[in-house]
């Protein structure tokens, strides 16, 4: 990770400063290239949907953009700053597998509110209502159902009022109504200016939410285009195959 103090490199243009500028990103483990050279510029606003087959590197890309893991090569700039503690503090990531504290549902929210010096019952209860967990407030979070856990994780992320929210398949195990509710929340916060990076396997959902779509394949960006374009006719063969359900890793 680079030293935060230093000024952003000269080439970082204004629009780049607003959003993410990813250059020459590489990450490998066990002799395998997991992220295999990614260059990407993502707007500072709107909803960017990331798609791609299992194992394409979507979750890793999110963690790299969030500055959770350091790449072997290349770098991620957000608002002109290298991804790291400083940028992370203003972002939130909802993991594909929610990590819930061994506490009650309410305490899971309180905990993050406290870390932001914003402990506040009413706000907490509002968040729980928003994701439909008000009745579960007192229950051990680990005993929630799969879908309930995902919703709690989302509420917890919202509690930090981030400028960027990374959502890794946040509706994978939600029922249709919850999916709609979450999508509405996402649209709402994005409308208020929060940047959303949203991973999904659901083409329909992508169509409903995405401003632009990043399609990953084998750790590379196969294509990055506006949503309509992508859905109409994806330029890359992998994307076409994926949508047709033909692409099998």
């Amino acid at each position, binding site marked *: 990770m680079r030293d935060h103090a230093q000024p952003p490199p000269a080439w970082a243009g204004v629009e780049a400063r607003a959003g993410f500028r990813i250059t020459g990103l590489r990450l490998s483990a066990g002799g395998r290239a997991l992220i295999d050279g990614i260059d990407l510029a993502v707007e500072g606003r709107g909803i960017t949907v990331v798609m791609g087959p299992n194992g394409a590197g979507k979750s890793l890309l999110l963690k790299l953009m*969030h500055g*959770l893991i350091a790449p072997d090569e290349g770098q991620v700039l957000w608002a002109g700053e290298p991804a790291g503690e400083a940028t992370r*503090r203003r972002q939130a990531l909802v993991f594909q597998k929610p*990590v819930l*504290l061994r*506490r009650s549902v309410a305490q899971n929210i309180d905990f993050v509110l406290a*870390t932001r010096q914003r402990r506040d019952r009413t706000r907490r209860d509002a968040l729980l209502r928003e994701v439909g967990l008000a009745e579960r407030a007192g229950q*051990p979070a*680990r005993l929630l159902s799969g879908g309930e856990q995902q919703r709690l994780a989302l509420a917890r992320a919202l509690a930090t009022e981030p400028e960027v929210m990374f959502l890794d398949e946040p509706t994978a195990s939600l029922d249709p109504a919850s999916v709609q509710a979450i999508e509405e929340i996402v649209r709402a916060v994005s409308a208020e200016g929060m940047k959303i990076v949203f991973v999904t396997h659901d083409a329909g959902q992508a169509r409903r939410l995405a401003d632009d779509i990043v399609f990953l394949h084998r750790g590379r960006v196969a294509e990055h285009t506006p949503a309509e374009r992508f859905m109409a006719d994806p330029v890359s063969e992998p994307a076409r195959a994926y949508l047709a359900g033909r692409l099998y890793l």
Partner: protein
Amino acid sequence: MQDFGAAFALAFELIASFDADLTEIVGLSLEVSLAATLIACAIGMPLGALLAIARFRGRGAVLVGVNALMGLPPVVVGLLVYLALSRAGPLGVFGLLYTPTAMIIAQLILITPIVIALSCQALEDLHREYAEQFRSLCLSRGQVVAALVRDGRMSLLTVGLAGFGRAIAEVGAVIIVGGNIDHLTRVMTTAIALETSKGDLAMALALGIVLLAIALGVNGLVLSARSVTRDAAHA
């Protein structure tokens, strides 16, 4: 062997008769060992958590060191404390030698490394589970330590009990810094040692049985408290 029977009879006699000297000794044993254990936990558990989360060069070395200190011989600890507190020693002016305070200090030195090493181990898994989430939230080390100790408290109970067991059973250190002075620094273990050297094995065993009864009591209390709060653990 007749000693066994005699010992048990004697033990129950002692407990039943509620012997004044015995209660005094038992009281001091508990006082000293509980104090040492509580302080050791207050110091050692956060340090153990810190060791579980911190990633710095030489961490391996520190781990080895702490684990090795679990093998700190009581007699050596006793000597070090003795030399420090002896009237001729650096801290001699406080005149702490041959007082319960000195015994607490010695036991503290003895069990703190144990608490650190075991806490570190007990919290490692929990940390592995929480780590990414916490890094995403940019928690300070203090916040992480606090969260781990809180959510890992059930595992830490066993750690505390291990420390207490070591303290209450220990004799080598307390006999040197306490002096096993009757009515002043005599505790169960030093009394047992004394009876043994007098050849009164039955009495020694009886005291040993009493000591175990105490350990059972303490553990029973702690663990029943645990099972009560179990549900709240959200395992």
